């Protein structure tokens, strides 16, 4: 299903790659464990006249069967940790140079997106405010300043593999770089009251010309 | 009084059952107060401006109450000493003195709070005062609970029954004292 969902940001593929890494490593253990488990149940089912073995678990040659996989699980964990730190650092900790900055404000139960106008700067007269519509240009790096007015919200764009809670009183910076054009869902992924289910927005990713046209069309008259 | 089950009389750890339970109870209290005071300390260090509010707490009330609690702890331990040597009546008297300490503490506290509230420093005045009333209030509830239980223990001790409980309520009371020993600098002295 995750393949069905498009990868519309520069790091979406990294997140999916990590998911696949975890799936392979943990899936390996999962299937081995289940196979051994059902195998043992079948092999040692009760048969008339056959008594169970007396095993304490301290026997060296048997104990290996626990301690060896035990060590291997640890090794797998280390691979996952490395992969995960990589992805996490890239998405949440570092900030690549921004082409544009948008301010995203969550409130019960709508998103307000403050786009920079044609001057490319926030908090100037030509800023474009849009409710529940985020318009971005493909292949440009965006920083977002995430804020909330009342309660917790969470800015989530599944096709970007991006999610970040918005907190009242705080301003959280993050980034994304769209790589596909199209129109996708923006969700609120933190329960925010009775209208939580209504708090949907759309992100419109257009090419340079399309975006410029939208900016011109929507720039407020001075 | 119902008969005690055999289970209560056993002591596989070597610590009498009642005392073992009190230690576990204290551990659970440590984390309750720890969570509250930890939250307070984190906020306090992040908000230097709270020192401004803390100026309005009255160190002398706090110091006097510390004195009261230390004294009541002293009488509690004397009660334990008396109970150990089997002097139930003497233990009960010392416990009564300890309860008197608790009552004094609460009286001083109520005077102090009345003055503060009348000056507008209510629980909603700012978050420092919220912590101040919550922490001291939670501690005050423990004082009240301790004093009530102590009344029952003292009544039993007077009749020479359940003398081991004198020590148990004593340990609890020392803990209440300990919490105040830390609340005093946190709320009153550090300004």
């Amino acid at each position, binding site marked *: 299903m995750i393949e069905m969902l498009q990868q519309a940001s520069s790091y979406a593929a990294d997140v999916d790659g990590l998911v696949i890494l975890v799936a392979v490593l943990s899936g390996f253990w999962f299937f081995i464990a289940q196979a051994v488990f059902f195998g043992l149940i079948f092999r040692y089912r009760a048969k008339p006249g056959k008594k169970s073995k007396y095993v304490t678990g301290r026997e060296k040659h048997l104990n290996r069967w626990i301690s060896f996989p035990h060590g291997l699980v640890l090794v797998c964990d280390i691979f996952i940790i490395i992969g995960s730190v990589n992805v996490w650092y890239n998405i949440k*900790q570092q900030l690549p140079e921004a082409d544009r900055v948008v301010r995203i404000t969550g*409130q019960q*139960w*709508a998103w307000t997106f403050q786009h920079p106008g044609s001057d490319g700067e926030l908090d100037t007269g030509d800023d474009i405010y849009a*409710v*529940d519509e985020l318009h971005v240009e493909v292949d440009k790096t965006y920083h977002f300043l995430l804020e909330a007015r009342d309660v917790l919200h969470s800015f989530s764009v599944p096709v970007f593999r991006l999610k970040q809670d918005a907190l*009242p*009183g*705080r*301003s959280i*910076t993050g980034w994304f770089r769209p790589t596909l054009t199209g129109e996708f869902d923006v969700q609120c992924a933190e329960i925010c009251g*009775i209208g939580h289910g*209504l708090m949907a*927005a759309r992100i419109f990713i257009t090419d340079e010309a399309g975006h410029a046209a939208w900016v011109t069309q929507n720039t407020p008259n001075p | 009084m119902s008969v005690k089950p055999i289970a209560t009389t056993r002591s596989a*750890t*070597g*610590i009498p059952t009642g*005392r*073992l339970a009190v*230690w*576990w109870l*204290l*551990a659970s209290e*440590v*984390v309750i107060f*720890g969570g509250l005071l*930890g939250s307070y300390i*984190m*906020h306090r260090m*992040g*908000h*230097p*401006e*709270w020192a*401004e509010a803390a100026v309005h707490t009255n160190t002398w009330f706090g*110091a006097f109450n*510390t*004195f009261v609690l*230390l004294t009541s*702890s002293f009488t509690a*331990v*004397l009660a334990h*000493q008396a109970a*150990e040597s089997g002097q139930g009546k003497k233990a009960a008297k010392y416990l009564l003195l300890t309860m008197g300490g608790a009552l004094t503490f609460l009286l001083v506290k109520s005077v102090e709070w009345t003055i503060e509230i009348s*000056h*507008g*420093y*209510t629980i*909603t*005045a700012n978050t420092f005062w919220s912590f101040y009333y919550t922490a001291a209030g939670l501690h005050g509830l423990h004082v009240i609970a301790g004093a009530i239980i102590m009344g029952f223990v003292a009544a039993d001790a007077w009749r020479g029954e359940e003398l081991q409980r004198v020590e148990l309520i*004593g340990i609890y009371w*020392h*803990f209440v*004292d*300990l919490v105040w*020993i830390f609340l005093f*600098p946190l709320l009153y*002295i*550090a*300004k």
Partner: protein
Amino acid sequence: MSDNHHVNYKRVYLWLLALLVVSVAGPFIGILSVTLITAFGIAVVKANLVIQNFMHLRWEKTLAKWVLITSLALMALFVAGAAPDVMRHEGQNWVNVAAADAVDRGVVDEHAEEETDVAVAEPGVFDAVGQFNLICAMCHGSASDGMGAAGLALDPRPADFTDPAFWETRDDQRVKTAIRDGGVAVGASALMAPWGALYDDAQLDALVEYVRSFGPTGQ
């Protein structure tokens, strides 16, 4: 285990009182670090005296010591884990604007006037305008024209109280019911939430009056 530990309780008690005097005297020197050391250092010493001598932990089995040490260590762990977010007001890619503001405000207050940091809200007075702007305006707009930020997204759109046509079919009772029990109660949109749990009857009337003031009769 023996119960015959001969502690001189009176001596411990006198020590505790002496330490109390020192910790109260500490702040009079007026140096912050001295205050903190006398306050918290002495608290630890006092606590130790009480624990060891009054609670008899010195003679107790190791188990009890471990129980208490574990609970204390866990609290240290909790503070260590939470402090980067709660104690600090900025970090990697985030800043706690509200807390920083509160600090600034507090510092300003300090210079402006001594006692002004105590803002006591007047009890009993219901601020209908304030509540409208806080709650209703999100959808209905602060100009009451149904153009609130959240309202733009809704279908059907929130009612426009400035529209005279709206008031032709409405009376105060209906508006009140709608506020109290939600849009469904008057056959309107389910997206109008019931707010009755928030306001008592008089407050509802005040809100209705304010809403009514946008309509033709109010002008």
